[in-house]
């Protein structure tokens, strides 16, 4: 096995580990007992096996895709199982402590609701691109997801964001941080 491949693989996995850590923090997956390292270990091993057996596998790229997709499906199923337990436990606690609380209060006026309402009013082609941008996807990821060329995605995104800003302004929603 060449050390170049090893080094390159290690570099990619380090980057990916950073991504997973930020995801775990962002969505507070720790509450479900999940750690970025746990999520990574299994996949790291599977991918490494494919790389070292590359010459023996007919189509390593498609095999890699299949293996990683299966791993991610397993992980999502695991997250859903843990989440179900966590949610039902929490609901129990909430109903014991505060039985009359309306969980759905205060949803209408959140900044997210304002932005989503404004995004829904955009023209169809721009709406989808803007929504994917709001879901943290970058230009390359949006064009791959929607099968659009980069130029078309960029065009739709810039125009869509400009429309979104105008609509939010018309709605009287100021989302920019106040400067001192």
């Amino acid at each position, binding site marked *: 096995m060449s050390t*170049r*491949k090893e*080094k*390159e*693989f290690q570099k*990619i996995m380090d980057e*990916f580990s950073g*991504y997973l850590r930020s*995801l775990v923090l*962002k*969505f*507070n997956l720790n509450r479900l007992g999940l750690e970025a390292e746990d*999520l990574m270990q299994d*996949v790291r091993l599977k*991918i490494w096996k*494919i*790389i070292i057996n590359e010459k023996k596998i007919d189509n*390593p*790229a498609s095999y*890699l895709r299949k293996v*990683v*997709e299966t*791993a*991610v*499906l397993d*992980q*999502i*199923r695991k*997250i*859903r199982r843990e*989440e*179900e337990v*966590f*949610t039902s436990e929490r609901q129990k606690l909430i109903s014991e402590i505060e039985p009359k609380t309306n*969980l*759905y209060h205060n*949803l209408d006026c*959140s*900044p*997210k609701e304002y*932005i*989503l309402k404004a995004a829904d009013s955009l023209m169809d*082609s721009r709406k*989808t691109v803007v*929504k*994917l*941008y*709001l*879901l*943290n996807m970058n230009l390359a*990821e949006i064009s791959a*997801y*929607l*099968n659009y060329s980069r130029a078309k995605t960029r065009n*739709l*995104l810039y125009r869509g*964001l400009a429309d*979104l*800003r105008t609509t939010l302004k018309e709605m009287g929603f100021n*989302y920019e941080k106040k400067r001192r």
Partner: protein
Amino acid sequence: MRKRDDRLRALVSGDESNELRLPRTGCPTPEELVYSFKPEASSEIKEKIIDHLLQCNSCQQEFELVRGYLNLIEKVERRVLRKPSNPIQKIARLLITGPALLKFAAISLLLLVLACSYFLLLKPVKDRWVERTSSLAESFSLLEEITLSQPATIRLIWKPVDKALFYRVEVFDHQMYLVWQSPSLKETRVELPNEVVSILQASPYFFWHLIIYTSESHRLESPARRAWLSPQ
């Protein structure tokens, strides 16, 4: 992208207000989330999932997980599995990963190749490229059947392409704004929906082009073709 747009994004993705996790009964299955990333997934499915994600933090976290893994696959494929197939790629790889002496040799070789290509190859290649482009446009044989008497119909027709798995058509108005995108098509013709026809009738011409999917990761795009609705 402007900083204030990033702020919009932060407001949407950072809104874990009251951390509500609703029951997952209406959520897409994990398989549907993964499928939505495939090129053959219809735009309706993608739009449905996107709308759901914006309302459901749990699905959003799973979607980001899938996105991360697909990026990982792409990186491993590109940087580890695929061997450099031509000399330029090999030199590029050496430049990135090789030791200092090899890097120096690779840079010298690259400069030599570039200098030779400039004097010997640049013009002929340019000419060939132009020829290839025009012949490529003809090879798609894009045609329209337009009937303007009521009810108006527009049919877009093209020649079958070897190894095509499916096709997609994109229609733009006279200012090149996207008006309609077809679902995945197996046939080599498509009739535009009535509402699209009525939008297009507002201007004397429109543009369209064909996207041909030959495998999961490869596609060809025809040049955009102008179609006149009224006599020129």
